[in-house]
């Protein structure tokens, strides 16, 4: 396994940046996502107005991959319509599961494409998808 393809600059930067790590005042939705086998836990909060995700943030503990993935996701979905956010989630999970492999189809994921290679590291796939599954549950 090639570490360069996993712990990329995007991932390490996002994992260290705390700009999405906070709580939101009176969020529309607040949902816990957890990964018992790792002990990872995130609490995802989102504020929705007129079907648009106005704000999102998270708190919790997790590894670099799960933190980076969560933060990238939040940056990506803010300002998006719920429908579009859900589409992003499906695309992301499709990418990790290697069901969507065409780079053009993945482009909408922007920075989240940096997590593509995580599928080479089966033990860490759960870390990468935790936030996305949680978001999906929160929105559905």
């Amino acid at each position, binding site marked *: 396994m090639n*570490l360069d393809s996993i*712990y990329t600059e995007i991932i*390490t930067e996002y994992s*260290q940046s705390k700009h999405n790590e906070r709580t939101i005042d009176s969020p529309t939705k607040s949902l816990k996502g957890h990964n018992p086998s790792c002990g*990872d836990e995130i609490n995802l909060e989102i504020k929705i107005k007129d079907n648009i995700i106005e704000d999102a943030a998270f708190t919790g503990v997790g*590894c670099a991959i799960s933190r980076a993935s969560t933060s990238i996701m939040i940056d990506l979905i803010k300002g998006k319509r719920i429908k579009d956010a859900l589409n992003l989630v499906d695309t992301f999970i499709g990418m990790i599961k290697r069901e969507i492999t065409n780079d053009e189809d993945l482009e909408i994921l922007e920075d989240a494409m940096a997590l593509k290679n995580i599928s080479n590291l089966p033990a860490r796939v759960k870390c990468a998808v935790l936030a996305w599954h949680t978001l999906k549950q929160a929105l559905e």
Partner: protein
Amino acid sequence: MKQISVDDIRKDFPVLNQTINGRKLIYLDNAATTQKPNTVIKSIENYYKSFNGNPHRGAHYLSLKSTEIYETGRKKVANFINASSTREVIFTRNATESLNLLAYSYGMNFIEEGDEIVISIMEHHSNLIPWQQVAKSKKAVLKYLYTNEEGIITEEEIKKKITDKTKLVSIAHVSNALGTINPIKFIIDYAHSRDAKVILDAAQSLPHMKVNVKNLDVDFLVFSGHKMLAPLGIGVLYGKENLLEKIPPFLYGGDMIEYVYEDSTTFAELPHKLEAGTQNVAGVLGLTKAIDYLNEIGMDNIEEMESELTSYALEKLDSLSEIELYGFKGISNRGSVISFNVKDVHPHDTASILDAYGVAIRAGHHCAQPLMRYLGINATCRASFYFYNTKEEIDLFIESLKNVRKWLGYES
């Protein structure tokens, strides 16, 4: 100490001589499971090529051979732990099954409302959840022995928690999460003075040091073969004969009966009463060969070799400012397990990065969530050694460890 060459030992273990992704494999996850020497691997192959048969039930050659192999294994285990008789040695699948057998057969039948069961905060889930269940179902009280700031269970704590209401104490000899060796002799004697029975979870001790059930005067003892060079799928429950006599069977089926009528059954004598269905003869043969291998090296030598490795590793880790160590820090009173974290780095990242360097360690809660919570941590990295590990491996482990923070974008 006789002349033992680790290089020679390592030749016996095919897994250890592997290269993975171009890097020498450094296997430091021995508390999870150990690697197998050729004699053990070969014995399984031989069994299936020459002797495979269903034991105990037949008068033909293969069945007789299998019975002989199986019962010889029982003698071997009895001698290894110094049991009084083969009737005290029950084969199970693993330590987990042995503990569940005790929970169902002993716990559910001899623990009553208001009784107390004492375990420690550092128990493996296998020696914790079964007792939670017994306590819940029997309205008994589950009490924990906690460690002090130095990471040890003090005599005061033991005397406080084990009372006249205590019926059962079930405790790990060595913690799989921290490596702590618990004061089991004191616990056993004190528990007996209060008329409580003691179960020793020897999953992490028996592979690494001499354990003598008679000297310890322990009532029950459990362990897993796979953590001591033997194949997966074979474990042991030891129990004092008079106690095993008292408990009802756990699993019901072939070979554990005397007479079966449509509406009632009488059961076989020990040890068969507690072994139902077709047994894992190849597993027992592998365990037999594993014990032969351990005896060949000598448990005293093994203890010494591992203690040297552990001190060496502890010293190196302690000198790294980015490493935080958990549990008791001294080398006396600890098994060959070290729990640590790299500053600012989640243990799963550390494990994945080390894996890329060929170093196999474990990250997580080590099946000891209450302990993690008690220590105020989420998860740790764990390096665990066996006598076949070397100082060179530890050096490489330490070198790899030094790179971890860099991969995560830290300056140093």
